[in-house]
């Protein structure tokens, strides 16, 4: 069968390295093996996958090796979703997986670009909008337009070439832009080659493709996405008016901060010069005046106290000494001496008197006992040679005798001796 249209579900899809695709087309009742050679497969916008429902145009022949019928596919269209959408989603998913959209890969834009490359069609609203806007906002930048095909079969390659060419030169910003159009018109910007060229650019890229509602893969990969070409130019450069304004602000700001700094320092200085030690330097020595005065006063007081104490002590001692004069002692001693003297006089006199009395008494007794008192009565004592004669036998006739009498002595001679009996008796 030749040139048949078949609708079914893909299964067992195998994409050979050669680009040939082998699969089975099935429906609820039957299964049909199929092949799509690479020459035909290239035209398919999307990548065939199992489970997809597709509409196939081709020929059915017997495959000799197996003897089975096989569908030889000429073209394949997805049933339901459009081919473009499918392709867009599939590429977006793939590149996202690779990390091409990662914020980490986004390059920074210089604040004051000197050179700007614009990759776009050399004619048309887009390039004009970009140039006018750049000139109006920031005439200091040099703009180089890279004329590029942005539509049609050559567009993908042209865009990739322009981006790569710009990367050979020294630009600060690259704007990739195109005016609005249908999805087919903008399709180049969804091509993987363009996406990779943008990704590989060392110059930061602003993309501005189609209108604000259009979103391309290029927009995802670029470092900055502008909704329109005019917006891209505005994002690429600062505004002159704003810059002049900012300069003005800087000038007044610098003046203000410097003046403030001076004022602040002035206040600090003022604070220091009016601080106690500097403003009232008399406080540096005044407390000492009082201290010295106090010490001097204490010195006087204490010295006089010491002196007065010494004087009082001396006066006391002097008074005590005066009371200890030996004068009273002398007087007392004199009295004692006088008494002793009187006493000794008395005693001496007494001694004489006592002895006199004793003597007088003895003499009186002696007198009373005197043997001479017997002779008063007529007795006499006869001595012979001073011996008292008591017996006649002591005497011989002719002896000379002395007879003591009361009133004198008689000297006699013995004439005769007469012996009496009494005398004899006495003798014997």
């Amino acid at each position, binding site marked *: 069968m030749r040139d048949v249209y078949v609708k079914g579900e893909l299964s067992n899809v195998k994409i050979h390295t050669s680009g040939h695709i082998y699969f089975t087309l099935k429906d609820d009742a039957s299964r049909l093996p199929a092949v799509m050679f690479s020459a035909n497969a290239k035209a398919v916008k999307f990548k065939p996958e199992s489970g997809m429902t597709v509409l196939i145009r081709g020929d059915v022949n017997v495959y000799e090796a197996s003897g089975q019928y096989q569908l030889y596919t000429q073209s394949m269209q997805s049933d339901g979703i459009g081919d473009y959408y499918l392709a867009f989603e599939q590429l977006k998913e793939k590149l996202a997986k690779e990390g091409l959209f990662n914020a980490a890969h986004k390059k920074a834009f*210089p*604040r*004051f670009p*000197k050179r700007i490359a614009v990759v776009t069609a*050399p*004619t*048309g609203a887009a*390039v*004009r909008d970009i*140039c*006018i806007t*750049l*000139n109006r906002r*920031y*005439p*200091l*930048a*040099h*703009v*180089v*337009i*890279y*004329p590029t095909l942005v539509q049609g079969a050559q567009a993908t390659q042209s865009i990739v070439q322009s981006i790569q*060419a710009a990367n050979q030169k020294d630009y600060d910003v690259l704007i990739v832009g195109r005016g609005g159009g249908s999805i087919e018109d903008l399709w180049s910007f969804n091509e993987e080659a363009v996406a990779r060229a943008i990704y590989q650019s060392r110059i930061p890229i602003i993309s501005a493709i189609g209108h604000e509602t259009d979103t391309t893969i290029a927009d995802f990969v670029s470092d900055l996405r502008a909704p329109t070409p005019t917006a891209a130019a505005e994002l690429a450069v600062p505004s*002159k008016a704003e*810059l*002049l304004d900012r*300069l003005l602000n*800087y*000038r007044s*700001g*610098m*003046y203000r*901060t*410097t003046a*403030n*700094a*001076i004022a602040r*320092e002035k206040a600090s200085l003022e604070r220091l010069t009016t601080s106690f030690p500097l403003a009232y330097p008399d406080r540096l020595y005044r407390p000492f005046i009082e201290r010295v005065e106090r010490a001097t006063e204490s010195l006087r007081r204490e010295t006089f106290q010491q002196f007065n104490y010494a004087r009082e002590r001396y006066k006391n001692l002097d008074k005590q000494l005066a009371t200890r004069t030996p004068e009273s002692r002398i007087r007392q001693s004199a009295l004692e001496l006088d008494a002793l003297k009187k006493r000794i006089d008395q005693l001496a006199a007494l001694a004489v008197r006592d002895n006199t009395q004793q003597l007088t008494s003895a003499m009186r007794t002696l007198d009373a006992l005197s043997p001479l008192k017997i002779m008063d009565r007529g007795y006499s004592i006869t001595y012979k040679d001073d011996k008292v004669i008591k017996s006649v036998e002591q005497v011989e006739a002719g002896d000379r005798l002395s007879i003591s009498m009361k009133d004198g002595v008689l000297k006699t001679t013995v004439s005769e001796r007469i012996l009496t009996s009494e005398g004899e008796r006495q003798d014997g």
Partner: protein
Amino acid sequence: MAEKEIMFNQAMEQLEEIVRQLEQGDVPLEEALTLYQKGMELSKVCHDKLQNAEKQLVTMMQEGKEVPVNLEDGSAK
């Protein structure tokens, strides 16, 4: 003379650095004055450069060469 040769972006960046330093406030007095003077000079340079640059230089890359473009004309081509 040297000032004339400085690039606008360098001048702006130096100026902004000076503004930043002055705003931080811990700059010694003498240096603050020096910075202020330098800042005023840079400000003038930037201002002059902006004010003097009246028209954008636009060229077109054709066969590896930059070709001047009259924008109105160029866009008309």
